[in-house]
């Protein structure tokens, strides 16, 4: 059976070039980068080169890149590493931010969770008015993992800078898919994850602007300039760096390709199925995100039908799909719980083709039609459903 992966916001396949780059660092150049002998020095050189690559990909200095175990750790480090005080964030952040904020609330911090509009945008004016004398940090994600909305990061960064407040952004979903400029956007800290950009899992980075005071979470041998102790995952870091450089190299072709597929999928669904709505912002959206809401049907049933046809999608975010609680992101953009249940997220990737989208467009109307035929929510006598079903 044909298998089509459309869940790239959950994770991506490791690029074969990345795999090749990593292989020597398991059994050959396996040394501990802290060791003084040649084995250790070889590993240290690889680590240094990888740090330079990631710094170049971001337009940063090597001393500003700290490798971590991934996006969640980077988010935790950014928020917990800053001294206590007031934090400003949004209601649609990733759980790595939201649950860290809740933890910090129990440890003496005060957190303001800003609302978003129906497209998922934070109003920079709300940020400005939420700033207090004790505000230490503003953390707003660059792009949302569920609906793909891209925030006005440059405006938020300017507000933070003008008010002497640190600005952190979770760029896990946006890196390689929309432009990131640390200087123009006045970003002080930025979280990255390798496995969302065709790199290996278990590795990521936190960019920390030179001069930013931050405390470590991990104490030990003083690795990563003391900010993150623990023997470095050299193979993973080398792979991550390769993935980051490929993301920059392929940025234009990737974004063009993804945007074309995204529009093809959205327009195709809208043309063939009635009572469908696009969740999120119509234009300020990641090139690979399509989040659609189908009236009268339940998302998980659609997901299962699609899976039986070889198509992998997600309802809400993969991390929380074990729970049936309606998505906090879709609630925040003003959707009623009964409407949220019919939402499906398709996230496209570099390896997808227009044939993949055609295949999806070929099977989706039938699936939606089938589920609507058994749904008690479709009003009697209506011809709703799909044009083909």
């Amino acid at each position: 059976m044909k298998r089509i992966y459309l869940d790239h916001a959950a994770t991506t396949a490791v690029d074969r070039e990345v795999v090749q780059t990593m292989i020597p660092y398991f059994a050959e150049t396996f040394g501990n980068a802290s060791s003084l002998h040649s084995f250790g020095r070889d590993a240290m050189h690889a680590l240094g080169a990888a740090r330079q690559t990631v710094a170049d990909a971001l337009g940063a200095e090597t001393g500003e890149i700290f490798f971590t175990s991934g996006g969640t750790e980077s988010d935790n480090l950014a928020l917990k590493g800053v001294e206590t005080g007031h934090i400003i964030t949004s209601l649609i952040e990733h759980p790595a931010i939201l649950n860290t904020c809740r933890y910090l609330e129990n440890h003496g911090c005060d957190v303001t969770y800003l609302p978003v509009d129906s497209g998922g945008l934070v109003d920079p004016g709300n940020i400005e008015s939420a700033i207090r004398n004790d505000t230490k940090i503003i953390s707003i994600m660059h792009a949302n993992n569920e609906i793909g909305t891209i925030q006005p990061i440059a405006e938020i960064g300017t507000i933070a800078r003008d008010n002497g407040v640190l600005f952190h952004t979770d760029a896990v979903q946006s890196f390689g898919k929309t432009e990131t400029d640390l200087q123009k956007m006045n970003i002080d800290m930025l979280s990255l994850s390798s496995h969302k950009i065709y790199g290996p899992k278990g590795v990521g980075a936190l960019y920390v602007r030179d001069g930013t005071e931050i405390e470590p979470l991990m104490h030990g041998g003083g690795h990563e300039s003391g900010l993150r102790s623990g023997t470095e995952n050299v193979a993973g870091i080398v792979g991550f760096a390769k993935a980051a450089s490929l993301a920059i190299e392929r940025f234009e072709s990737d974004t063009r390709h993804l945007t074309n597929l995204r529009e093809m999928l959205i327009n195709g669904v809208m043309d063939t199925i009635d009572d469908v709505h696009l969740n999120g912002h119509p234009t300020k959206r990641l090139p690979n995100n399509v989040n659609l809401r189908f009236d009268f049907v339940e998302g998980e049933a659609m997901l299962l039908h699609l899976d039986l046809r070889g198509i992998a999608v997600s309802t809400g975010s993969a991390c929380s799909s074990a729970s049936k609680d309606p998505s906090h992101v879709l609630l925040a953009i003003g959707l009623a719980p009964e409407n949220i249940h019919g939402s499906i997220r398709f996230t496209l990737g570099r390896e997808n083709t227009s044939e993949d989208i055609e295949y999806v467009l070929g099977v989706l109307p039938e699936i939606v039609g089938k589920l609507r035929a058994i749904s008690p929510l479709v009003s009697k006598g209506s011809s709703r459903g799909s044009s083909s079903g």
Partner: protein
Amino acid sequence: MDHFMNPRNVGEIPDADGAGTVGNQVCGDVTNVYIKVTDGRISDVKFKTFGCGAAIATASMTTELALGKTLQEGLAITRDAVADALDGLPESKLHCSNLAADALHAAIKEYMAKN
């Protein structure tokens, strides 16, 4: 899986002798069950479900188990019986299987109250 892909007894019975609705849209699960009763037995049964795969499959299986049964036998159909008939359900899906059995029981009780 077959009961999810090809659910049996889908539909409504406009002149049903009993009807039951369980669940609500806000939680993401709604199941309606309709029955016809002839000589004390469930002579026809139909359902409609808005819900996950397990909710659809259990509703289909519940109607299969109920068809031809007496009202007392219908009331004795439990979610465990439905789950067993489907060769088990994941833990997190057990609440879904309640819906269909409860909707069936509600339909039977509605019939009993009227007659």
